[in-house]
Every structure is written in structure tokens, then in C-alpha cells.
């Protein structure tokens, strides 16, 4: 089996890259909503901005779950093969731990929107 360092680094950092993507998206959305004045606009009674943020967070969490499953499969395969390459096992574990950190960060990221809505 051959694997490139690029995809290995992507696996290790993937969870938090998802968080970073969500962060960037929310930062831009919030900045635009407050600067362009659509922070309070609603669609069917639900605020557009909170809805966007929560949907993005749900998508990010789903991405984390996929990544965790992928890492678990990789780890299981390594254990099964008892190969010399221990980095796959370490990487799989580290990737899942990074996903755990990302999940916490994402949960806290949407907490303010849930508590106080979009408030410029």
C-alpha cells in the first residue's frame, strides 16, 4: 500500500480543517450580514443568518462523522494486517482525537447563535 504525505496530513488535520471552514464561512456571513444590514431578515419566521449558521454546523458535524468512520476503518485494517507501519494506526487515532476537538469547537461556535441570535 502506498500513501502520500499530503493525504496523510489531510487525514490528521481534517477534523479541524472542517472547523476552520465553518469558522471562515460564519465570519464572512456575520461580517456581511452586519455590514450590509440583513442580520435580522427572516425566511418563514426563521432568521436567515442563524439558519445558515446552524445548517453549516450540522453539515460540519456530518463531515466529522464521516472522517471518524474513515479513520476507524483505517485503524481496524492496520490492526488486522499487523503490519510494520505503525503510523497508520497512530494517524487513525490522532485523526479521531482531532475530530473530537473539532466537535467541541463547533458546538461552542454555534452556542452564541442559539443563545442570543444574530445580534450585531
Amino acid at each position, binding site marked *: 500500500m502506498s500513501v502520500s504525505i499530503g493525504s496523510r496530513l489531510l487525514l490528521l488535520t481534517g477534523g479541524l480543517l472542517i472547523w476552520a471552514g465553518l469558522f471562515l464561512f460564519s465570519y464572512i456571513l456575520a461580517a456581511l450580514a452586519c455590514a450590509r444590514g440583513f442580520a435580522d431578515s427572516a425566511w418563514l419566521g426563521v432568521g436567515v443568518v442563524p439558519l445558515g449558521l446552524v445548517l453549516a454546523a450540522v453539515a460540519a458535524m456530518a463531515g466529522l462523522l464521516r472522517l471518524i468512520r474513515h479513520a476507524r476503518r483505517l485503524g481496524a485494517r492496520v490492526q488486522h494486517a499487523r503490519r510494520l507501519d505503525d503510523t497508520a494506526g497512530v494517524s487513525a487515532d490522532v485523526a479521531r482525537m482531532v475530530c*473530537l476537538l473539532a466537535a*467541541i469547537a463547533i458546538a*461552542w461556535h454555534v*452556542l*452564541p447563535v442559539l*443563545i*442570543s441570535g444574530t*445580534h450585531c
Partner: protein
Amino acid sequence: MHVARSLIAAALAAGLTATAGAAEQSVHAPASAAAQSIHELGIAMYIGAGVITLLVVAAALVAIARTGRPVRAGWFVLGGGIVLPCAVLTLLLTAAIMVGDALSRTALAPVARIEVIGHQWWWEVRYLPPPAAGTELGRLLARLCGAGVAERARAARDDGGAVRAIVLANELRLPVGYPVEVELTTRDVIHSFWVPALGGKIDMIPGRVNRLVLHAERAGTFRGQCAEYCGGPHGLMGLVVVAHEEADYRAWLANQAEPARKPAGDLRVQGQAAFLRAGCDECHTIRGTSAGGARGPDLTHVGSRRTLAAGTLDNHVGTLAGWIADPQNVKPGNRMPPGKGLQGSELRALAAYLASLE
């Protein structure tokens, strides 16, 4: 449990202020609901931080002191590093968001709007007229706060027929019990407006207008200071906020709306002449006289102010004379030119004149 916490909080707060003696500028001597909520948040966090630090240091000490025993990584790293901080921080973050939300949503029913303009290194304070009953802001105010508050706001406003003219320096006066909106801008570099007893700070940034609501709940004198480094004598850019009971505030406002008093007595007349001869009017305004400069503070009621040179000196005849004679010694780097070729007698007359402008 709650009683115990309040007791500890009270003890800590007392300790903080007692070591201080004076607490004019303390974060933990709140005079408004905003400052009070931050004060309580702070006390809770100090206790938490103290306990956690002690526990961790104790754990490290024990770990070094005793011989090795098997550990479970999960127990330490997962329990101590993830579960515990998650629980504590989720609580804290929730509290932080709720307090921050409450503070930044403070219902606006301003009885006065004050424009504070930062200068290197003093504060220009302009009292803007409050919203009239018919205006949009006035209607908003009535709707937001109910007729009672709006009525009181109008009553406060009715006192200030000439309110638009009031310009002070380095001093704000507020009515106790009423919210006052402060509009913050700057004429040069970034400054930051901060009066700890009344709440948090906010920066004054070129090209932006930031707003802050001050709502003093007790009468008193509170000190503030520029909190963003602005070069030169940034450390000597103080500010005094005086919260008056309603009647005193009205009286003060009425007095400030008047033009400057005519000099009474020879000495003061000489002082006014010296003021003009030395060219002070190039930078300073004294309403009711020919002096109309705009670079330095308005001196119409300079005698009524508590301090000189932005909170650097107490204000009386002696300090006035000393300040005019050698401003660079009192506050090195400030923009007030030294000397001005005044003789000793002229200086005394000038100081007496200015001190009389109450």
C-alpha cells in the same frame, strides 16, 4: 451554597477595594448594572481559577514527590484535559454570552446624547440635544420604554434650551438613574473611552462612530482614563465622570448652558486682557467673548471643572497658574505651548480670571 458564594465574593471585593484605599477607577467598585454584572462574573472566575490552579499544582507536586504508580492515560488526559474543561468552559461561555448580550442590548432611552471626541491627549465633550417628542428617535424612545420614561426624558430635555452649545473637556456629568448615550469618535489617533465604575471600554477609531450607554445608579465621582496607547503622555489622559442626582444635574446643565461670566474686579479684567494678549484665544473658546479657537479645550466654564490637563492636576488658581506657566513640565509632550511671555502679575491675573469662569 449561594450564601457562601456571596460571602466569598463580598470578601474578595472588599479585599480588592481595601488594599486600594481609594477605588475611583476600580473594576470592582461598580456604579452601574453593567459594571455590576461584570464585577460578579469576575469574582466567580477568580474563585474558579484559584481552585483549578491549586488543584493542578498540588497534582504536579504529589506526582513529583511520590514514587511511580501505573496510570490510565484516559483518566488523566480525557478526564482532566477534556471532560473537566468542557464542563467548566461550557458554563462559562454560556454565562459570558448572556452577560455580553444583555450589555450590548441595553434598551436605549437616552435622556442625553453626549459626543466625546478623543484628542492627543484630552477629551472633548459635547452635549447634543436629546431627541424631541416629534422626531423618529423620540417616538422610538416612547415605544421602547413606555410613556413614563419618555416623559421623564422630555422633562430632562426641557431644561436644556441651549443644550447644543455645551462643550466641556475631560469631564462628563450624568444624571443618576437615566441612561445616557455616548458617541465616541476621534480627531487624530485611536483612543479608548473607559470609566470602570460604569462599565467596559470601547475604542475611538478614525472613520467610525462607536456608542456606549452609561447608566449611573448612584451619585459620585468616577475616574476614567484613555485605555488605548495614543503616543506621548498617554498616561496623563484622564477623565472625570460626575453622576448627580436629578435636581443637581439640571442646575449644573442650566449653568453650563450660560455663556461665560463677565470678569468682575480689576484683577480678572486684567486676566482677560492677558488671555487675549498672550494669544490663548487662538486655540481656546470662551463663549460670550471674542475667544473662539477650536484646537484646545473650551474654557467657558473651566472654573467649574474638577481637574486640569485631563485629570493630571486638581483645579484651582494655583495649579491653573502653574499649568499655564509651564505645561510641558506638568505633562511633557502635550500640545499647549509653554511660556507665552506672561509676566508673573499677568499670570496671576489670568489664573484668577479663568478660575472665576464657573
